[in-house]
């Protein structure tokens, strides 16, 4: 059951990511990225991270992707055109990415014995477990992130404002 769910949603992730790579219109890429993020939320649930699954849906596939689709529509982005840079990018991009994938898969497969397995429901991090760590040991970094968000909002408004 766990394996079937993993393969369904892992396959959806890979299919969405490949679709992002192959589509030429940015809105299609954005929609396939939403598929990737939503299926990643299901994988988080399988790994016992219930708060992160909810946050993934709300923050990533909700807020961030709405921002992306909004900007795509605001700028009226059309299909991307092929330019002189495309050919060099193809020549470097695909072999480099394939070499990276081969290296990572080799490392993970060679350590598969030590890593063990994931049993469904064996280890569950509840929201209270997470918040206990977040608000006791990591209170200062948590508060600093709120400053970061504030600075980011101010920066975004200042950058996107029309020049007088």
């Amino acid at each position, binding site marked *: 059951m766990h394996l079937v769910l993993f393969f369904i949603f892992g396959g959806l992730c*890979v299919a969405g990511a490949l679709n*992002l790579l192959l589509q030429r219109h940015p809105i299609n890429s954005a929609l396939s990225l939403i598929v990737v993020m939503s299926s990643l939320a299901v994988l988080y649930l399988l790994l016992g991270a219930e708060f992160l699954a909810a946050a993934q849906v709300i923050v990533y596939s909700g807020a961030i992707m709405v921002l992306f689709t909004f900007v795509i529509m605001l*700028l009226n982005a059309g299909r*991307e055109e092929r*330019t002189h*840079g495309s050919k060099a990018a193809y020549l*470097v991009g695909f072999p480099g990415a394939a070499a990276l994938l081969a290296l990572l898969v080799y490392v993970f497969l060679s350590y598969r014995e030590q890593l063990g397995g994931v049993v469904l429901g064996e280890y569950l*991090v509840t929201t209270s477990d997470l918040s206990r760590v977040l608000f006791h040991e990591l209170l200062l970094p948590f508060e600093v992130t709120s400053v*970061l968000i504030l600075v980011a909002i101010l920066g975004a408004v200042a950058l996107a404002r029309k020049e007088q």
Partner: protein
Amino acid sequence: MVPTSYYLILSAILFTIGVAAFLIKRNIITVFMSIELMLNAVNLSFVAFAHQWHQVSGQIFVFFVMVVAAAEAAVGLAIIIAIFRTRNTLNVDEIDLMKL
């Protein structure tokens, strides 16, 4: 039971597709989206390791990555809007003012 290495390999596949999309795509918004894809792939491996070692810190890391990604998306998209206003293009090959 699913081996943890399957989750890590899925994360590696997603990260590699993100790298390939980052290098190949010519539209600045799609390039930005492939960065988000790479961040998500790394988040998956963090959660897999948090489950593997029964540690909450892995999930805390993912939480902070999400916060930083939200801030980065807001600022990055504002920069993209500013670039589009001044240069009227989204193609990364035409935004080469700093190139020698």
